[in-house]
């Protein structure tokens, strides 16, 4: 197949997706060799690249309708779209396998969108700008790759690619304790990713024929006589171990209490744009990994350990909110609020209510998981906004001590107005983006465990407590008495332009959440229905080996690229999948 035959939609799709992922990396390479020494040029060039990538991802998000343009998204289609599948390392069956669905597309757009804003917020960086821009672009490649990769190996590579630029971005351009924060971030994430790697390799080895294809692995994991059921160690199955290892790896990134301690340090020390990316995008990778990988591939362990997932989520919520309340440092407060907000994601994903007790009703779990997805996007907007706003005032007064603020409303009225919107969005005020995620998560959790739902709902009060208290301490009050009072100038035009899209999105998603749910829900529903189908299966003997004989070696090599018109309740991605035919699909 020629890679330059642009009439072939397959080729075009390959170029489009690859361009989105690798354009930033390419830009970074060009930056390194350009014989120009103007810092302003480096920033403009990088901004141009991020804008270009953003436009390309927007192209992906345009609903396809009747047009036959390559790359547009078909709304209501739950399966993978824009699938790109090429051979990479045949001896290990590793493929260059990319695709998008309702779960990954919003995160891809969030990434490219926040990258533009963060790059623009980087105007205040003036130390080794060339290296900064190059590392930033490299980071964007890693982030986009994680959300688009469907080959486990590829996923892992992008996951790690993100690590090095982040280390240097925090370690070189960060605050006073940057080196400590950078190595702590690196260490925690690497510990998590080593566990992920082991899980990937064990799954690869257990599948037969060996594969890194996430969709195939999910299909195998959901079979009634899946090879993942065989005992691995200490009486637990492959599936159980893989789930635990993967979950710990992703929970580090999320982060969930008690492995969240890297986050406050990293956020506080990182420069403002990097904090925006950290909170806005990197944390979402944890949630994405759990939705995309943990549950579909290891449903039985997810079922068994649902209480752990939900419990951790609730503990994170409460602990994060309480810790945020105790902070004296503005940025640390925002960082702990992230821990609290990401707890909702965990609770929404984990609340496995489609059980026999509820006649396998999937509605509530779909609600919870969609809420978790919505919460991720909403948190991406509000937390990036909050970090940006903290950065704006930090650049002026060079401190973040909450006790020394006050009276900003009088000095910076526009800034304060924007802050109110963003902070209230984080709080979950109806009409702003934070509301829907929290609401749906709590609704979803209700049918799983009333206690957890009540606790989760009351965390909203804690959140309101620390946010309102913060607003009172920072913006209200008669006048600013802290250091550098003269520097409190109104927002510059650039700062307003960066904040405006965040405010607009916070309001838009608040009043019209359907814009996002339309993309997310079909895929989430498909995932949930698959889980439900799995839990309805009669449980097979764990030592069964029948699977090996039944499967033909290469029947999954060429999955259908796009399957239009499937009803959401008819989930199989691969039409040959036998497990779906085996069970009765009686509806309650």
């Amino acid at each position: 197949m020629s890679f330059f035959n642009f009439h072939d939609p397959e080729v075009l799709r390959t170029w489009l997706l690859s361009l989105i992922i690798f354009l930033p990396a390419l830009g970074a390479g060009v930056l390194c060799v350009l014989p120009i020494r103007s810092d302003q040029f480096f920033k403009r060039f990088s901004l141009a690249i991020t804008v270009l990538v953003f436009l390309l991802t927007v192209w992906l998000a345009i609903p396809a309708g009747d047009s036959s343009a390559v790359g547009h998204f078909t709304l209501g289609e739950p399966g993978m779209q824009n699938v790109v599948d090429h051979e990479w390392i045949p001896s290990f069956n590793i493929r260059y396998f990319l695709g998008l669905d309702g779960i990954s597309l919003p995160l891809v757009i969030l990434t490219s969108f926040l990258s533009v804003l963060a790059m623009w917020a980087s105007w205040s960086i003036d130390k080794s700008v060339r290296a900064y821009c190059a590392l930033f672009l490299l980071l964007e490649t890693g982030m986009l790759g994680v959300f688009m990769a469907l080959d486990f190996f590829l996923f892992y590579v992008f996951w790690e690619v993100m690590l090095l630029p982040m280390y240097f971005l925090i370690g070189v351009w960060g605050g006073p304790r940057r080196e400590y924060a950078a190595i702590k971030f690196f260490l925690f994430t690497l510990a998590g990713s080593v566990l992920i790697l082991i899980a990937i390799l064990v799954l690869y080895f257990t599948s037969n024929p060996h594969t890194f294809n996430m969709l195939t692995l999910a299909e195998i994991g959901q079979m009634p006589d899946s090879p993942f059921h065989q005992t691995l160690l200490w009486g637990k199955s492959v599936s159980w171990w893989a789930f635990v290892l993967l979950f710990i790896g992703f929970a580090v990134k999320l982060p969930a209490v008690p492995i969240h301690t890297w986050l406050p340090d990293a956020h506080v020390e990182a420069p403002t744009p990097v904090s925006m990316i950290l909170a806005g995008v990197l944390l979402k990778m944890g949630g994405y990994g759990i939705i995309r990988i943990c549950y579909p591939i290891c449903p039985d362990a997810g079922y068994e350990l649902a209480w752990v997932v939900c419990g951790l989520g609730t503990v994170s919520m409460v602990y994060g909110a309480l810790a945020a309340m105790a902070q004296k440092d503005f940025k640390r407060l925002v960082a702990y609020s992230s821990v609290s907000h990401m707890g909702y994601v965990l609770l929404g994903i984990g609340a496995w209510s489609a059980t026999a007790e509820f006649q396998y009703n999937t509605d509530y779990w779909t609600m919870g998981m969609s809420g978790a997805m919505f919460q991720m996007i909403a948190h991406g907007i509000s937390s990036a906004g909050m970090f940006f706003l903290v950065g704006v005032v930090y650049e002026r007064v060079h401190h973040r001590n909450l006790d020394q603020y006050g009276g900003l409303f009088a000095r910076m009225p526009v800034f304060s107005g924007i802050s109110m919107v963003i902070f209230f969005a984080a709080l979950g005020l109806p009409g702003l983006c934070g509301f829907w995620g929290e609401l749906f998560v709590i609704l979803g959790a209700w049918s799983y465990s009333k206690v957890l739902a009540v606790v989760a709902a009351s965390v909203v009060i804690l959140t309101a407590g620390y946010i309102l208290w913060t607003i009172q301490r920072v913006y209200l009050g008669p006048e600013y008495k802290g250091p550098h009072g003269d520097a409190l100038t109104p927002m510059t035009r650039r700062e307003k332009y960066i904040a405006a899209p965040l405010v607009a999105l916070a309001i838009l998603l608040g009043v019209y959440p359907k814009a996002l749910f339309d993309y997310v829900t079909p895929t989430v529903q498909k995932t949930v229905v698959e889980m439900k189908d799995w839990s309805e299966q009669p449980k097979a003997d764990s030592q069964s080996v029948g699977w090996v004989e039944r499967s033909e070696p290469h029947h999954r090599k060429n999955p259908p690229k796009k399957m239009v018109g499937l009803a959401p309740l008819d989930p199989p991605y691969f039409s040959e999948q036998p497990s779906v035919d085996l069970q009765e699909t009686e509806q309650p």
Partner: protein
Amino acid sequence: MNFDQLLQNVVGDTIGPGGSLCAFRPELALCATIVAVLLAKIILPGWKSSAYYITLLGLLAACFFAFPWSWQQGGIPAAKSIFTGALIADSFTVVVRGMLLGFAVLFATFTQMTGVWDREDQAEFYVLMLGSLVGMCLMISANHILIVMLGVEMAGVPCYVLAGMKRNQPKSSEAALKYAVFGAGAAGVMLFGLSLLAGVLGSVQLPTMTARLIQIIHNGASADQTLVLALGGLMLMVGVAFKLSAVPFHFWAPDVFEGATAEVAAFISVASKAAALGLLVRLVAVFSMPSALTFPEGISLPPDRLAAVADLGVVRQYIVALLSLLAAVTCTFGNLAAYGQTNMKRLLAYSTIAHAGYMMMPVAAAAALVGSDAVGAREAIAALLIYLGIYLFMNLAAFAIVAFLRNATGSEEIADYAGLVRRSPGLTVCMAIVMFSLVGLPPLAGFWAKMTVFLALIDAKLWALLFIGALNTLLSLFYYLRVVKVMALSPEPLHREAPTIPLTSLVGSYCALLTVPVVALFFLLGGVLYWARAAAHTLFN
């Protein structure tokens, strides 16, 4: 058979068509090069760089002879023993020898560039290197106790001299003495172990010894025999562990690496280690499976091969336990000890120790697998060879950068690398790539090394070893990252000559040349994989 007939047979076997000498041409080329280098020093005293060019020519000739040209037509030939069973010529020999020779080419160029030797000493240096190389080639193709001993000594003794070749530096002499004393001790223990094995098994040829071993186990070994055999195996392992710098026989490594020049340290760290691993694989392969080769003495295997394989189960268990323990301890200790180092060469010495631990893991996996799944065992050996091939580039690049920086700044302390990124950004990027590759992060080749080893461990179900390997990846991050941190993040000291080494300079481009494969091999693993699998192809048959 009278003496004359015997002589006829030997001559025919040696120089006849397709005879033993044919497979031995690379080693002969090396020997010829040694003579040529020494002669050139006498005949052409005016030509100062003669030694380097002759060495390079000789090495390239050896590479030419070593390259398996015939594989393209005929596929990989089966293993055969040469020199009446003293050596074994198979794809493993071919590939590892090719690796050693390729390394030697890069290494000779590297030493010529750093100019560390006086022009007067150059000839001696290359002669010693080539001599050591011949010994290493013998080690990896050993099929006979004598050759094992000969190879280990031939590879080792020139290294002792190389370590002490900087005559006017006391540290260098100390390193040489320490190395020699330790080496002699280890060799003595190994020789004693070999004599115990030979005494019980009544032979000195390795496959024959295995055949006897099977007979003994089959008939029920007495307690005394078991004790002596176990002790012999343990003592044999002492010698190999010394060459591998495996804990607890690693004490020489940091001191030798610190005292010797960075160039010599690179040679010991890569070539010597590769040869030791080659020997380890040979020993494990021969004692864990009855060989399919015919033996000159006419000893045939027990008729039921499966029973013979099963009889060796206890030997395999012994090997797996021994190697797993050594690997786990070596790996963990190396990484922990590296944490406190301030001298770059000492740090790399402990890093070498840790990597030796990693590289023993797939050998243990192979030994665990070979009884039930020879394909899996071969795959594990292939993992080792992938590791070795990638490790060659990573470590040579690391030592090359250390040597070039020593030439520029006169220091090998990590603290003196502070702020290097501002003067030599290209070199710092190279170093960072190498260090992260040594940790095993994608998208760098070091990741494949780790990953294939982990795959082998999963296949062999050695979970404890897998856990230790994963934990060590984490431990190793600290000290590799510290080097990068000092170079990139720390402020530049006020009083230092600026070591400006742009990538466009000769030495800079050499570093870049070594770093490119560290990145490129991640994306293009196919070639490495082909050679690694080809090498393992003839093992465990």
